[in-house]
């Protein structure tokens, strides 16, 4: 097992445990991109766009939306903590795998060259598409892909098919994914 990754079934158990723990311990459905949305809206809170409010603010505005025990929305500090501890967990894992501070993936450099400016631009541009697309679709790999698809939600099934399909198409176009 290259780089000491988990076999798929261990990964499945670990990945499935996250939305369940998130729900049972925090009383909220697991979704990561919504935390980014809360944070950016907070940063420009002088003028929150109407769409950020239309679904959530007015009571009764959204039928069936109520979770059984609606928990108080988490504050920006908690969102920041969540993001920081994602990095902490990633760092602990990489240290255990002996992969801490690895250079950029060779495949990535092979496709886009070794100019740091170009690589930074590709990452930033890709990031913009990720941020824009996940907000437009109303979720990402966690909220749609894991939490939504497993509840057979139509929006999540379509969004997941779309983002996975686009990922496949772009990878094929770039000619990536070769042997190690």
């Amino acid at each position, binding site marked *: 097992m290259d780089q000491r990754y988990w076999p798929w079934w261990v990964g499945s158990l670990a990945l*499935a445990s996250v939305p369940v723990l998130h729900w049972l311990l925090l009383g909220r459905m697991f979704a990561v991109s919504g935390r980014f949305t809360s944070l950016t809206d907070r940063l420009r809170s002088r003028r929150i766009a109407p769409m950020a409010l239309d679904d959530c603010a007015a009571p009764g505005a959204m039928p069936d939306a109520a979770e059984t025990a609606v928990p108080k929305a988490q504050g920006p500090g908690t969102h920041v903590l969540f993001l920081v501890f994602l990095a902490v*967990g990633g760092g602990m*894992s990489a240290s255990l795998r002996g992969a801490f501070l690895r250079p950029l993936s060779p495949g990535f450099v092979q496709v886009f060259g070794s100019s740091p400016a170009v690589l930074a631009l590709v990452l930033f541009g890709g990031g913009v598409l*990720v941020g824009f697309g996940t907000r437009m679709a109303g979720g990402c790999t966690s909220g749609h892909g894991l939490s939504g698809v497993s509840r057979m939600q139509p929006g999540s099934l379509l969004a997941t098919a779309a983002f996975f399909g686009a990922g496949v198409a772009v990878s094929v176009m770039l000619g990536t994914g070769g042997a190690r």
Partner: protein
Amino acid sequence: MRAKVLTCAIAAWLGFALDHIGFSSWDEVHRMFVFADLRMFLTFVGAVVLLIPTWIVVARLTGARWSPRRIHGGTLFGGLLFGTGWALSGACPAIALVQLGTGSLFAVFTLLGIFAGNALYPHVHERVFGWTSGNCLDD
């Protein structure tokens, strides 16, 4: 306080798991996308398959009901844009942070891009799209 500690613990576990699965590696993600290596694809499918009966049991035992995720004007194209960005940057929103944690400092650019794209969306939405998303965004 309790919720904050639990949030941190879950986030750290998620970050640990995502890196141990391989999601933090651009190359592993691309091996998944072109089906050169089925391990990560099976990981994801396996997790979804495990979750389906789990939600049914949880709903039975606790009477929980969750917000629906309906199809709206942005579902398809938002998904396509996200997938394109994921393949280019090798990161979904959580992964940018995990990559940073693993010492991939270039992920700073991905993270800045995600925040920029996320902040840009409502402006475009207001001027161009204007549909109701049907999802509570903080869900």
